[in-house]
């Protein structure tokens, strides 16, 4: 195996055995799959301008860099702007390890002679790479064997890497595709680990739905940082895609001016929902509830209820749908039925007989801690929120939002990235 750090600064010999300079950088292309091939070496010779030696004029790279032509016959490679500069753009930079779902730093870049050509095969992110760069790999290797903990080799194969060069649309496109396929919570972690500009470049390439899911999984400081760098139209579109309770939380964290502006840009229906959620404090049932829940009118049979749900827009938007709420025209809650009971009931059975007519419920001003307590005590997956004055059901608090209050991770989520 060959590493870029072993080529950097090496003497370059022509076919007559003359030293013609030192290797400054290694260029490969980056779109070729699975392993991009070597395009050229960048040669530095004192104060003279850099020279590009094309791959086909190189006989060997290791142990010495030797050309197959004399100095005079070098046909300089013409850079097209589509090259990857391994030393300048890869070494020491951040990349995303798609398999490991994390942001890592490139300690070294691995090359190998595969299919007639030198190719970029992987990226070394291990301590061994660091030690090699420090020039102490052999000593450390011996020491490792001596204490029976040989140094591990962690080279991530090139296919599993999303490389992020700011301002390079093709490269970013490839990386975005790889990253978008990860679960939103992993995308959030990766964005959090990336430096700001690169993170934003990735964001700009993502579709609204992925972005909305990612925002839901991000700590509030990241959410704000992300939103503040999108134009308002797009920010509003993304907020519409998000869970109303999460979107309302996010809006509450923004300056009032921005919140109003975004609400103006949102669809009327969605904006109205946001406004009603924003009226309640962050840490109350009203603040963490979602207004998207599945409901059915009273006096249906099981069969009717199921077909009602299939065509109901609210049911479609209910992401969990653990419970179905029976509600009349005045939004009064008549009872709750679990989805399981509904599905298992005989098609023509009256639902009035199997629903729970008096479920545990909370008022919009019940504290988040109390909601969490009720959820835990009664083993609930969601609690309806009811405005007792007007006897109207407003929304539901789902278990995940309720327990956020009592789990220590919820505190951590609110810490800035720096810590």
């Amino acid at each position: 195996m060959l590493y870029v750090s072993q080529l950097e600064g090496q003497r370059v010999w022509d076919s007559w055995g003359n030293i013609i300079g030192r290797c400054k950088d290694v260029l490969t292309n980056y779109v070729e799959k699975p392993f991009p091939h070597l395009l050229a070496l960048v040669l530095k010779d004192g104060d003279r301008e850099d020279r590009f030696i094309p791959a086909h004029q190189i006989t060997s790279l290791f142990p010495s860099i030797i050309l197959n032509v004399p100095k005079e016959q070098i046909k300089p490679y013409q850079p097209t702007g589509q090259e990857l500069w391994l030393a300048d753009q890869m070494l020491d930079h951040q990349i995303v390890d798609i398999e490991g779902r994390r942001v890592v730093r490139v300690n070294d870049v691995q090359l190998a002679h595969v299919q007639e050509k030198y190719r970029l095969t992987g990226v070394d992110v291990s301590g061994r790479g660091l030690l090699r760069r420090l020039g102490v790999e052999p000593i450390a290797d011996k020491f490792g064997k001596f204490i029976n903990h040989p140094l591990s080799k962690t080279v991530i194969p090139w296919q599993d890497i999303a490389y992020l060069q700011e301002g390079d649309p093709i490269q970013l496109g490839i990386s975005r595709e790889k990253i978008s396929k990860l679960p939103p919570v992993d995308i959030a972690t990766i964005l959090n680990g990336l430096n700001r500009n690169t993170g934003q470049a990735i964001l700009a390439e993502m579709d609204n739905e992925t972005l909305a899911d990612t925002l839901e999984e991000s700590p509030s400081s990241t959410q704000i940082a992300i939103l503040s760098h999108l134009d308002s139209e797009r920010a509003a579109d993304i907020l519409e895609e998000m869970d109303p309770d999460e979107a309302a939380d996010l809006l509450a964290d923004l300056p009032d001016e921005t919140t109003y502006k975004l609400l103006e840009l949102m669809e009327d229906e969605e904006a109205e929902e946001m406004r009603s959620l924003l009226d309640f404090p962050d840490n109350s049932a009203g603040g963490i509830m979602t207004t998207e829940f599945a409901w059915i009118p009273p006096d249906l049979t099981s069969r009717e209820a199921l077909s009602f749900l299939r065509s109901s827009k609210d049911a479609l938007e209910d992401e969990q749908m653990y419970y179905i709420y029976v509600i009349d025209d005045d939004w009064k809650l008549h009872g709750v039925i679990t989805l399981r009971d509904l599905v298992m009931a005989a098609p023509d059975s009256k639902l009035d007989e199997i629903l729970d007519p008096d479920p545990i419920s909370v008022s919009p001003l019940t504290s988040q801690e109390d909601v969490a307590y009720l959820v835990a005590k009664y083993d609930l997956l969601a609690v309806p929120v009811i405005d007792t004055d007007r006897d109207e059901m407003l929304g539901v608090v789902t278990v995940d939002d309720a327990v956020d209050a009592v789990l220590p991770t919820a505190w951590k989520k609110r810490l800035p990235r720096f810590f």
Partner: protein
Amino acid sequence: MPKKVMKSVFSRLWIYLAVLGPGLITASADNDAPGIATYSMAGSTYGYSFLWLLLVITIGEVVVQSTAARMGAVTGKGTADLIRERFGVKITFFAMLCLLAANLGTTIAQFAGIAAGAELLGINRFIAVPIAAALISFTVLQGSYRYVEKMLLILCLSALSYVISAFVINPPWGEILQNTFTPTFQSDPNYILAVLATIGTTITPWGIFYMQASVVDKGVDAKDFHLTRIDVVSGAVWGNVISAFIVITTAATLFIYGITVDSAEEAAQALLPIAGEGAKYLFSAGLLGASLLAASVLPLSTTYAVCEAFGWERGLNQRRSDAPIFFGLYAVMIAISVIVVLIPGIPLFSIMVLSQSLNAILLPVLLVLVIKLANDKRLMGEWVNGKLQNIFTIALTGLISLVTVALLFFSV
């Protein structure tokens, strides 16, 4: 439409408040335990003659901190990140070693401050220091640090008592003004160490990293940068005015009677004119507040920077087993600090002052890297350092190096 106007005033204020902060925090940390110790020692030993240095340091701090902030705003990257990408592994390794040495020294000094503050209250340091270490680790690792920070900052306000104290004593203001604008120098190794400590406690390696990281974290970009500059300038002026008053008060109360401060008890006497019997409690509150605050931030920002530079998993939301170096380095720094402070008979006050001299001696290494980064067109674009900023930073680097050489020269 008065209501609308109010709204926009408030949201404007919100934007300011969101951007303000890091400058103020780093400046408040100038008056942490080693800071108070250094200024008390300087004021009581050399009188008002240190005031000119504080003026120079204020300018230096503004230039260095705003350069760090600008690098954060333009690149969106941390200092360690930039150093690694621009200079490669070897230089990064050296820079991180310097940062680690400086910050470990300062962390030890914070725990020395905790020990000294506790002993003033009559609590044995063998009890106080381990408890403080456990409390700090617990709150920080739990992630509830943000909530404690405010309380500790309030404790730090006790440094204001020096300002009140100075006005109560009514020192010779004419002489003070004169000393502020007339540089003086002595070729005595102790004097030089004190000069270095005064520089090192104000312009710190960790301050640079912290400033840049906060700016990145707050998402300040180049066009909002003028707000950050206000933060940096007001923070530096505020911090150094307090420092100056510590020097003035100790000079006016102790120097004139020939009392040289080398313990917290003696340093506390500077507050006798306003607090009388309560002086030691007031002094202790300031010492404890500042030390606990800095002891919480410092090890964390150090381990964060080191892990950022080498690409190791980092952050409090990682599991321990996923980020062993991040948490390990943190634990080691706290453990070493506790052990050093508990060595029987170790002079707490000297630790505090000498750690700051060490800070200053290591600072040029980072300043050279910062100068190179801030002048890199590819990195900074139109935001590269101006002539004036370069002159000041290079002069500061030169000054510190010169003083360090002088120290070696006069010590032999």
